[in-house]
């Protein structure tokens, strides 16, 4: 299946070389890894390059609102049991970044590719993946993101009739809707804490009934499919009913869910769940997420939460009170400029934690916490927040650019 039986055309080779040169220039200029600019140059010279690069690989795509970078890492590690893997491990997940990542792995057997939600259907059409892992969909970047349900609809149309094996989270009604037009779906009971984007039936608009872990539409009969894989506490249950322990260095229920989907996806490539899960233990902090850093002689754990579903999962993994918490929120372009999502997050979950508030939009957070009836302190910057926090390891939770600010400040 894989291997480099057909060499790249001269045009494709030129495109790859030019892309690498542009990336090198970008790196030399101190502008990051250069993977996106390199991919852009290469795609300009050969618009079909992404498709061409992928023909030599068994490709699996990973998409979701939350957890796609981590899942890509977990799955790549699992598939390495069977052969070399090329992956956009740094999270450059649009076509240019993906092209650049694939161009770097001419010897690889597998391509494990994280894809931005908006590009999934197009990338799937280009690279003809063997498998696609779909984790969850929820509200994100309100001022410019497509409506969440519309995104599910676009996936459904774009993936209909796909030859790929779809590995899908059956506990997310929007994911189920997106995947259920595909002929081959492996349904995973991967769980989902956030429910507020799927009270309406994606099929008929009826109100979804959600008793315990189940969900169904009382009007049209659209319902949670029967699953063959499941996350059960700290174990993955495989289709034969065997329970395999999840041992991760990454914290939280959401990462166990990511591991369960990754194990199911790896099995589609013949990797035994035991082997897959053991290999996943190697994955450490992804792009600084969950890193514990030293700052002003304190231990600070850096946690990224980009949207309400992400905040909810993050609250469930932090150490309990009286562990000090620092919250940082920005509303720059990459975050979405509308902060109203703060009111979708249940901050009362932080009751009992000493709370420090920073970031460009610390005042929005201050009002939010005041209305939640919580005690908090507004600080000028991260340094002040860390210095004034009471004893104990600090949990610092930040949204996208605020997280980058924290990493920069601690030199991570």
């Amino acid at each position, binding site marked *: 299946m894989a291997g480099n039986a057909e060499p790249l055309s001269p045009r494709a080779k030129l495109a790859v070389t030019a892309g690498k040169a542009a990336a090198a220039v970008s790196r030399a200029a101190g502008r990051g890894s250069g993977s996106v600019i390199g991919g852009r140059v290469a795609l300009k010279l050969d618009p079909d390059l992404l498709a061409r690069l992928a023909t030599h690989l068994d490709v699996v795509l990973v998409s979701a609102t939350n957890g796609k970078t981590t899942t890509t890492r977990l799955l790549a590690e699992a598939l390495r049991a069977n052969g070399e893997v090329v992956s956009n491990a740094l999270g450059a997940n649009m076509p240019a970044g993906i092209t650049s990542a694939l161009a770097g792995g001419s010897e690889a057997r597998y391509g494990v590719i994280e894809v931005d939600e908006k590009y999934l259907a197009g990338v799937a059409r280009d690279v003809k993946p063997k498998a696609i892992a779909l984790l969850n969909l929820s*509200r994100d970047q*309100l001022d410019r993101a497509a409506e969440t349900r519309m995104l599910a609809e676009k996936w459904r149309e774009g993936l209909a009739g796909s030859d790929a094996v779809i590995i899908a989270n059956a506990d997310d009604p929007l994911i189920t809707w997106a995947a259920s037009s595909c002929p081959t779906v492996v349904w995973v009971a991967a769980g989902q804490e956030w429910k507020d984007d799927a009270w309406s039936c994606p099929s008929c608009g009826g109100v979804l009934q959600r008793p315990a872990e189940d969900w169904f539409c009382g009007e049209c009969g659209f319902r949670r499919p029967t699953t063959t894989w499941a996350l059960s506490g700290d174990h993955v249950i495989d289709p034969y009913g065997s329970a395999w322990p999840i041992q991760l260095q990454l914290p939280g229920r959401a990462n166990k869910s990511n591991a369960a989907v990754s194990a199911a996806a790896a099995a589609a490539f013949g990797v035994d769940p035991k082997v897959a899960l053991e290999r996943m233990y190697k994955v450490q902090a992804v792009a600084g997420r969950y890193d514990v850093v030293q700052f002003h002689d304190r231990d600070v754990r850096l946690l990224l939460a980009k949207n309400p579903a992400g905040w909810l999962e993050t609250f469930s993994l932090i150490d309990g009170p009286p562990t000090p918490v620092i919250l940082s929120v920005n509303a720059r372009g990459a975050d979405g400029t509308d902060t109203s999502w703060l*009111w979708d997050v249940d901050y009362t979950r932080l009751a009992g934690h000493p709370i420090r508030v920073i970031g460009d939009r610390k005042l929005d957070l201050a*009002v939010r916490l005041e209305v939640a009836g919580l005690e908090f302190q507004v600080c000028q910057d991260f340094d002040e927040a860390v210095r004034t926090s009471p004893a104990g390891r600090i949990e610092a939770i930040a949204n996208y650019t605020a997280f980058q600010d924290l990493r920069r400040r601690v030199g991570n």
Partner: protein
Amino acid sequence: MSDSSLRLVWVYPDLLSTYGDQGNVLVTERRARQRRVPVTRIDVRSDQPIPTSGDIYLIGGGEDRPQRLAAERLRRDGGLNRAVDNGAIVFSVCAGYQIIGHEFVNDLGRPEPGLGLLDVVSVRGEGERCVGDVLADIDPALGLPPLTGFENHQGVTHVGKNARPLARTRFGNGNGTGDGTEGAYNETVFGTYMHGPVMARNPQIADLLIKLAMDVRALPPVDDEWYEALRAERIAAASQPA
């Protein structure tokens, strides 16, 4: 108020709660409780009947299809119209604002009847989507400080003669009609395009609704330190668009 507690009804959070709209409920509830007014909060999903005995009804924003579904279900239910006949207060935002008018354009591109609780008609705007911070002066008759909010809509809403514009914009689009109006209101029914949520940035609006519902002229003061700091920051931001 119908009994000793303020009955606060949140209409259809399953359909109309896309932009942190729960915030308006939380702020109103909090500010009533800070005045020692007992509050009964009633969240009504779209497969449940709208109670007609509420004091304040809050309706949020939503995307195009949920907006049509909400309008269909509210028309069929009829409870909100009966509540307004009973003198209830309604405060609605964005998609909810359009629904309580006479008509809006639905996700299928067709005119959809609203509830006719407020004399406004909404159409789809031809220009760019209105996104960003807004600063506006509220109708002096209401005696409120300037309105700050975040708008994010394609709709254009025309205010009829039986309603008054809620505010005049200094920065931002508001109703999108080009005449500087933002929102609309009559004696008991209010509509606005402002997210933020609007009560978080303008807690005096929550106070106004509470006063109207309780039929009192004033409420004891509460500590508005953080609200005031946020207002000052957002008013400055709206005045100096990036």
